[in-house]
């Protein structure tokens, strides 16, 4: 099934949880100073392990960047 992470398409074989997707990207529960939204809603860090990812989900992984 197809999902997107930060605007890039990703294909995953079977339904899984958010933390598995993040793990493939080198992110885990201890990665500091980032936050996640799925389909326009925040997913709190404490829920990464229990959030199912389904086809079409749009995941955003954000952090602090330059800004005025």
């Amino acid at each position: 099934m197809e999902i997107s992470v930060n605007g890039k398409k990703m294909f995953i074989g079977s339904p899984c949880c958010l933390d598995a997707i993040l793990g493939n990207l080198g992110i885990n529960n201890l990665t500091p100073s980032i936050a996640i939204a799925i389909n326009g809603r925040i997913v709190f860090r404490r829920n990464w392990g229990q959030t199912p990812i389904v086809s079409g989900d749009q995941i955003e992984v954000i952090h602090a960047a330059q800004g005025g």
Partner: protein
Amino acid sequence: MKHDQLTIAGKAFNSRLLLGSARYPNSKAFKECLEFSGTEIVTVSLRRLSFENPLSTGILKDIDREKYFLLPNTAGCYTAHEAILTAQLAKEALETEWIKLEVIVDDDTLMPNSNELLLAAEELINQGFVVLPYCLDDPVLCQRLENIGCAAVMPLGSLIGSGMGILNPDNIQTIKAHASIPMIIDAGIGTASDISIAMELGADGVLVNTAIAQANFPQQMAEAFKHACIAGRLAHRAGRIPKVSSARASSPQKGKMEITSCSLG
């Protein structure tokens, strides 16, 4: 003036100059500008993490959070929904409830969308955020933002990045006259005198980014802005003389010599 601190939502700062973190020539220049400006508050945006190069867009490596207070913004948001989500993400990522709330109309003017701004501000305040809204220099709007519980108002001096200074000083003074929360001028600063003018008009602080970051010598400009901010604040508190349309001699008439006219030869 030792205790003339800027207090926002109960938190006191010694510097009244706030700095943005974008568009500096390099990270060394940015860090030096933070130091030379004397700032204590630094704004950041929230953007996508690059998985190819996670440090390429990150800014936290350049900001000592022990020394500088982070103020995340919602730059680039067009709707209340986007701005609320961005504020929530900032809180989660940076562990702060403070948010510089920006909701813009379009990319050309970057003007604030007052309707969406009010909606977002109200919701975020309900969620416990400390909201500092970037807004039009509109005294009525600023009063509404205060009434719904914003911690400060941040009216624009002129368009973001324009360097045109304070285009509507009367409005700025009117906003300040009615506000019981801090008024921080955000956007439009071009050079040091703009900051002094803002502070002389009664601003409690000024936020600057491009005018320092894009100056020929950013570190020097940062230092100039530090002094301009202090000078403007001192002048405001000292109380300027009223403007009059006729001359007033500063040297006394009393005791002036009486000299009989005679020819120079």
